[in-house]
């Protein structure tokens, strides 16, 4: 909550747009949905990358063993990138599914 509260909630509408579209009376085409969902998923990627990088860095810094701490910190970027990519895919697929299948 601390991390997200610092970020703009305006851009934080990963599933929100999909829900809004799902509540409308008609389904949109793939071409209508794709840019909306891509933007939402990109926002989700950026926000989740911040969370994962911050969370993992805090954990690594809590380790008392110097070699474990260094190894942990060295992996933060790869870990955060991988996790944020998973969030992107989940957000994009969920959004497209909701958007095109009303």
């Amino acid at each position: 909550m601390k991390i997200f509260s610092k970020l703009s909630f305006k851009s934080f509408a990963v599933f929100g747009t999909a829900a809004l579209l799902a509540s409308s009376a008609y389904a949109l085409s793939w071409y209508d949905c794709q840019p909306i969902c891509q933007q939402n998923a990109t926002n989700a990627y950026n926000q989740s990358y911040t969370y994962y990088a911050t969370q993992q860095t805090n954990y690594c810094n809590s380790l008392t063993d110097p070699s474990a701490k260094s190894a942990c910190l060295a992996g933060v970027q790869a870990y955060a990138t991988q996790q944020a990519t998973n969030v992107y895919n989940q957000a994009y697929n969920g959004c497209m599914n909701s958007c095109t299948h009303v």
Partner: protein
Amino acid sequence: MRHTVLAVMLASCLVPMAAHAAPAPAPCDLLDQQMLTALNLADAATKVEHKAIAATAQAPANRMDMCTFTPRVGTGASLSVMRLPLAKKMPPGKPICTDNSAEKFGLATCNVTVKDGIVTVSLVSRRAGFETLSAALRSNFERLFTPGRQ
């Protein structure tokens, strides 16, 4: 004589097997079915990935092994487990879990040091129902990784 030959042949088979005994568990196997069931991922699809980590001034090159569980149907919560090997044996640490929720979705993560590495498990879920899943993640992670409870 025949017995000696057989013994040598048997030993030659067992030595390589012993050399490869007790490999590090695959990342997916770090979690159990009870945990996956609690997170509605008992029948999940799994994907294993290995990522190289470049050396830094403080740490040698390494790799991370990841396993991602995603629902076969629908767009429910997904779970990933990452294992980062450490060169030095570590005493088992205490599990630490955090979560972070936004308006529409939540992220929860648990970390622990095990004897040969760091294990990180992360959950991504829609906001609705996130608290329940996050609590299930935390309790199951502590069950699996609290020293003395395994």
